[in-house]
């Protein structure tokens, strides 16, 4: 039986992802892999509870062998155990198949509290928490800012919503998805060390292999495009003369509104016009 299981994901540092200008594919080479920042906050909350209540914290990830780097990161920050679920047949899993696989392993390990990040910075779906919750048939709380209390098998959390906050009490077992907060994170160390990682493959968990990986994933990515919104702003009409093109580029490449009103100083006419618009 695990006290707290933290689900983590290894992600490319998306701020540094580059695209192949010809094929429009993602250039992964040379892009560093990091722990998904949302998961790092979830881990931090788990380690805070570990200290306070003397609980055992385990980190869990699914992915290729190299994903053990994030598990070592979690161990270096103070996690007690690290589990890697890896199998060739898991490749191509969408969020449904991923949650199904993770839930199967969590079931095998025994669970009480499951933590995860609200979303990952690469795919940003926010599906995994609720989906694992559904597969295990346990309550979920998402968009959590922080844990407020943990006693007598009841967890109290602060959940952010569009209107403000809810303080929610939930009886365990349950799954919690954490937002990033302003809290300063302790840094961990990534390493390729294998000795403290417990590795599981598909045959170790109780699941039909047709329900995982590509075969078990209902969704298919059929096309990848580069976002052209930025290009739209920077587009310069090729029919223009060189001088005009240079002029536009110097202005930041933005297409000017044709019928705009420009005021070069602030006077009472403008103020009364603005007041009229506001009212």
């Amino acid at each position, binding site marked *: 039986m695990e006290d707290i299981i933290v689900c983590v994901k290894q992600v490319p540092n998306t701020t540094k992802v580059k695209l192949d200008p010809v094929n429009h594919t993602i250039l992964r080479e040379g892009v560093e892999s990091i722990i998904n920042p949302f998961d790092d906050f979830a881990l931090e909350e788990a380690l805070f509870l570990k200290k306070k209540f003397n609980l055992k914290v385990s980190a869990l990830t699914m992915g290729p062998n190299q994903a053990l780097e994030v598990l070592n990161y979690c161990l270096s920050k103070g996690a007690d155990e690290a589990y890697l679920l890896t199998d060739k047949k898991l490749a191509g899993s969408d969020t449904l198949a991923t949650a199904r696989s993770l839930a199967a392993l969590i079931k095998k390990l025994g669970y009480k509290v499951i933590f995860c990040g609200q979303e990952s910075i*690469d795919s940003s779906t926010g599906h995994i928490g609720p989906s694992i919750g559904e597969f295990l048939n346990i309550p979920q709380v998402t968009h959590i800012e922080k844990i407020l209390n943990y006693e007598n098998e009841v967890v109290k959390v602060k959940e952010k919503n569009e209107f403000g906050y809810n303080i929610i009490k939930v009886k365990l077992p349950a799954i919690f998805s954490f937002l990033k907060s302003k809290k300063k994170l302790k840094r961990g160390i990534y390493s390729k060390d294998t000795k403290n990682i417990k590795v599981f493959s598909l045959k170790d968990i109780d699941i039909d292999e047709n329900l995982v990986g590509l075969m078990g994933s209902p969704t*298919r990515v059929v096309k990848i495009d580069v976002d052209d919104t930025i290009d739209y702003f920077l587009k310069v009409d090729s029919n223009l003369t060189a001088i005009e093109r240079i002029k536009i580029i110097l202005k930041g490449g933005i297409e000017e509104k044709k019928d705009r009103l420009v005021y070069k100083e602030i006077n009472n006419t403008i103020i009364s016009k603005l007041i009229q618009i506001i009212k």
Partner: protein
Amino acid sequence: MNPIIIDKGKCTGCKKCLEVCIYNALEIIDKKAVVNIEKCTLCRLCMNVCKFNAISFFNIDQGKEITSYKGIWVIIEYFNNNIKNSFFQVISKANELSEITKEEITVIIIGKGLKQISNNFKKIFSEYGVKNIKLIDCINIINFFPEDIARIIFDEIILYKPSIVLFLGTNFGRSLAPRVASKVRTGITADCTELKISDDNNLIQIRPTYGGRIIASIICPFYRPQMASVRPNIFEIKKNRISMDKINLEYKEVEIDSIEKIKRVISTLKKDSKDISIDEADIIFCGGLGLGSKDGFKMLEYLANKVNAAVGATRAAVDKGWADASKLIGQTGKIIRPKIYFGFGVSGAIHHLIGMKNSKKIIAINKDPRAPILKIANIAIIGDVHDILCRLNNEL
């Protein structure tokens, strides 16, 4: 075994399928196309381009009877006695899809105490061409939790088999949609910014990933319903009035064994009521680095309160700590569509412009005449931000 089957008698080796496969899963061996099982993702793009009908698909999950699923559903939250404006954006998009698929739209309204006001819903939705309204009155629920609502929607899906189910990407919708999809064991795509229908009647769900740098098109070819959550304020609201007596309204009382036994909201902290959300506001006052300080931002907030405008901020202002991240407008923050946008000391970095370019009227004040935002503004004022704030304050 690979469910993609190539009929060697029909295949002419024209290589059309090779060109379209983004996974390089096809090759020509002895002048016939062959699928590489390791690489194929069963996306069926090759099937669609083959002019000779040489490629067919063995359905792995025939029990799902895809064709028996019909209709487009939009799930509507009616939790605080109102419907967020953005839900009508989803309905407008659903209308576009329904014109192509020729399937009817049903709005599923989840709320409490709906019986007395059922005619109001008829009136509201007649403006948007919705022919079917289903009111689900959760009579014994105190708080709306995704776990409970997922069970209710699941029961409806199993009974009525819609082909498409759309959610608005509110915090609640984003927590509910994956819960429902996992119960039904079908596919779900998050935070879509565009929806289309493919030639073979699949819902193409388009969404940004990798921090918005990449746009992925996703389909759910062998499972139904096809489910997606939609990003607020991307789609335009289009009215499409129909007569109220053309509307089918179904009322359903639901009493469920709620999760409230083990999960409870013990208190709620509401933001200042004056603090209007930038998602829904008609007027937005956005502050940028030009405001100079936290005090400058406070002045903007003070003024916004006076005229019921919502306050937004640029990335630079948020990073300085002048405004909360929830106020961020732009590619990594909120996408807005207000009637009037005011930019006070906003320079107009590309990532901000992406978030506000759809505003109906743009008014920008900046002391730098070269500030990009002045170029896309309807009214561009070159001048001191503090001067204009003070003068507006005197007049308002």
